[in-house]
């Protein structure tokens, strides 16, 4: 496939899976924003505004993570129920183009959520340029690993109900329990290691240090070594999951 044909292919998948459903059923857009906004409201009220900045950055992380992992439900539905993936496999469309098209069409759904939280970030948070770049970089990496993870999982599911079981579980394990919506110092030091089993903790660490560097919501002294470890783990995990998705996922059944 030439580069132009790949671009056509990609845009067509985004159009079919993202734009058309969004136009036909705009409520999908609200669906992606409901949980992050509910968390924001709850944390803001419960902390009397003290953790609002964490709730806003947590909302961004949750929105982008849901965008990535949400791909699994669509992929399973398209593969098992509609057999659309079979139509795609038996065509010139390559697996990376299909996954990228599906991932970007999921991204379309998250645009209102991201817009709301970005506006809140601009209005409420103090962020330096480095902090803003850190936030953007962390969100891109979360999107990358969660999409790759969602795709790999989806190829092993034989029923959409499995995806329905995993999606909320992933959300809880990666955003609700880990210190995404709250500072890591709230977790007792003896069990803090458990938080680092979730990749979102590394992203949240980076984002929270950005807040600290700008002089707001500082709960832990910034450390260059910890920042390097966070970037390293997050980038490494993203690369590993993308490679795993590209090599191990079942595009053709064994």
């Amino acid at each position: 496939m030439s580069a132009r044909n790949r671009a056509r292919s990609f845009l067509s998948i985004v159009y079919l899976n993202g734009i058309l459903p969004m136009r036909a059923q705009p409520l999908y857009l609200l669906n992606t924003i409901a949980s992050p906004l509910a968390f924001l409201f709850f944390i803001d009220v419960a902390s009397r505004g003290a953790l609002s900045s964490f709730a806003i950055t947590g909302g961004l992380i949750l929105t982008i993570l849901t965008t990535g992992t949400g791909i699994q439900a669509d992929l399973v539905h398209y593969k098992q129920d509609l057999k659309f993936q079979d139509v795609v496999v038996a065509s010139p469309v390559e697996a990376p183009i299909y996954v990228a098209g599906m991932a970007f069409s999921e991204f379309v759904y998250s645009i209102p959520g991201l817009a709301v939280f970005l506006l809140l970030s601009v209005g409420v948070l103090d962020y330096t340029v480095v902090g803003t770049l850190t936030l953007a970089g962390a969100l891109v990496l979360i999107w990358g690993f969660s999409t790759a993870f969602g795709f790999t999982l989806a190829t092993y599911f034989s029923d959409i109900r499995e995806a329905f079981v995993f999606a909320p579980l992933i959300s809880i394990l990666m955003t609700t329990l880990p210190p995404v919506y709250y500072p890591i110092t709230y977790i007792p030091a003896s069990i803090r290691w458990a938080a680092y089993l979730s990749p979102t903790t590394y992203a949240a660490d980076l984002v929270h240090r950005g807040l600290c560097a700008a002089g707001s919501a500082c709960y832990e002294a910034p450390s260059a070594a910890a920042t390097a470890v966070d970037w390293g783990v997050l980038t490494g995990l993203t690369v590993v999951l993308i490679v795993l998705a590209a090599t191990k996922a079942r595009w053709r059944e064994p």
Partner: protein
Amino acid sequence: MATAVSAQHLSKTYTYRGGSTQALDDVSFDIPAGETYGLIGRNGAGKTTFLRITGTLLLPSSGTATVLGYDIRTEEREIRRRIAMVPQESRPLYFATTEQLIDGYLRMRGMDGTEARRRRNDVIDELGLADVRRRLVSRLSGGQRRRVMVAMVLASDAELLFLDEPTTGLDPLARREVWSAIQRATRERRTVLLTTHYLDEAEALSSRLALLEGGHLRIEGTPDSIRARVQLPYRVTLDSSWSVDELTSFGPVTSVVGGHLLFTREKEAREIVQSALARGSRVALAPVSLEDIFLQLVGRPLDEGEVTEKPEEPE
């Protein structure tokens, strides 16, 4: 004659918790290019497995095949550039209209907008979808949705089309429209590999046929050559004034509603027809249909249950 698909000793075993099922067992045959090839057999006979292997969706357990000259194991990308498939029980994406879906599929394959629109309009007219071209697919009937799926691949520029039971669920008129579109595809020198359990469909569309039963290839050839292989090439339908005992000396007899069905040779067919005319009983004589051949070779009709249960997806 060029070969579109060449299968050599293809076997496929699905393994799952607690056992395994042999879906294809040492199947070898060639499918000529530029023709419609019918793959017939009951549910679970191995038709879809064969289609999925040659359509690069599934790897065989052993054996190999070439599709349009390319190896299915190592050159799947070359194959995929040249094929299009309507999988069994596939359904279109619900949020698109008929036009958007066909157009989207063609562009997804890399076709430019002008060509995609031209081909889309042609196929919509040909498959009788003009009235629903701007209707959401979710609001179409089951038969119309099926036709949209077929329209998508027929509108493509693929050299080889895989159609897995494309007319299941269609009314007779819609089936004829799909047949006509398939015939047009072969007039364009494209190859169509069609699986069906409608023998009239296989006979009407296919220049060659293969019958799979329990994962084995039972018969392969042109409809005429298959007929020629049958030992009892005539079917005689008699009314109920005859008893089964009177007929068994002519050949195997099956009692049907209102009379009997007898398969026999030419000499015996003449005799029984003359006797029937002399008795003034109703009689009809015809060459055996593919359905009859299937009955003779396999021992039960094509629509009588599945050969064996197989898991949907292998583990």
